[in-house]
Structures are given as structure tokens and as C-alpha cells.
């Protein structure tokens, strides 16, 4: 399982420190993955 840890809360940090996270997330699109493997729909999570 991949995992990325960063520090937030300051403005104007290094350039686009979220690039790796966005790449990791977009590389495995869960809805696509779910439809591909025909997995059961996720357990009904309460909406935020």
C-alpha cells in the first residue's frame, strides 16, 4: 500500500508539494477499478 506524509499549515511552501499525492490518486481511479473488477459497491458511507 502506498502512503505519503507531508506537513501543511504554512503558506507559500515548496512548489506544488501535492503533485505526488495527486499523481498517486489519479493513477488508480477507484470508480474505474471498481467497475472493472465488478466489485460490490462500497459500503454505504455517511455523506460528509
Amino acid at each position: 500500500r502506498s502512503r505519503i506524509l507531508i506537513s501543511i499549515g504554512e503558506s507559500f511552501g515548496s512548489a506544488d508539494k501535492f503533485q505526488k499525492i495527486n499523481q498517486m490518486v489519479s493513477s488508480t481511479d477507484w470508480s474505474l477499478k471498481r467497475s472493472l473488477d465488478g466489485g460490490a459497491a462500497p459500503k454505504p458511507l455517511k455523506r460528509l
Partner: protein
Amino acid sequence: AQECEDLEVERQRRLERIKHKQSQLQELIMQQIAFKNLVQRNRQAERQSKSSPSPNTVISLPFIIINTSKRTVIDCSISNDKFEYLFNFDNMFEIHDDVEVLKRMGLAFGLESGRCNPEQLKIARTLVPKAMQPYLTEMAQGAVNQP
């Protein structure tokens, strides 16, 4: 020959470091311009409306945003003291910081992508110290090193 070899390696290493530091400096210049433009824009808006916006309608820096499709189900757990949060997403999302938002708002005059027109470049030059101006011109012409 060996000494030449070592110097060649040293030269390559320095070139790499200089390239990285140039992109770091370009990023700092863009952030300075974006922040000054944001302050300028808000000051003008408040002057025109002769009032400050109510606190719950604005988002002060620093912040980050997470955007995701409307279909995404987000499960959120929060500790009582709000020091800890846990989110579970069942779909893709993107995370961006405030600097990225300011750039997307056009407040860095498109310098991040080398699309800064002469008019904007003239204004941008007034927003940074003289020593930084050569870097500005380079960025406006598209010589932006990706960090």
C-alpha cells in the same frame, strides 16, 4: 585525465544544483507577485464596496483545498478537540495549496506557464526588486524550470 574526470563530475553536479535553485527562485518570485496581486485586488474591492467582507464569506491564507466529484462519498471522523480528522474517499480527488489556487486565479500573470503578456510583465516588474527582474523576463518568455 583523472583530475579532468573529477572536474567534469563537479561541473555536472553544480549545473544540476543551479537549475534546481533557479526554479526555486522563480517559484518564490511568482508567489510574491501572486500574493501582492491578491492583496491589491481585495484592497480595491473593499474600497469600492466601502466595507470588509463578513469573515464567514472569505477564506484566509494559508489553506489547502480538496476537490472531488459530486458523486464521491466522503466518510469523515473528527476528534472532539478537532486536532485530528480522518477522511475516507470512495473516488478520486485532487489536493492543491493556496499558491496553486492563486496561480489558477491568474494572480501570477501566467508566469508559471510562460504565458505573460508584455502589459502584465510591465506590472510584474514593479512588484519585485531590481535584482529579480532578469528572472522575470526569462519566465515571461517561457523559460520556467519545472520544479
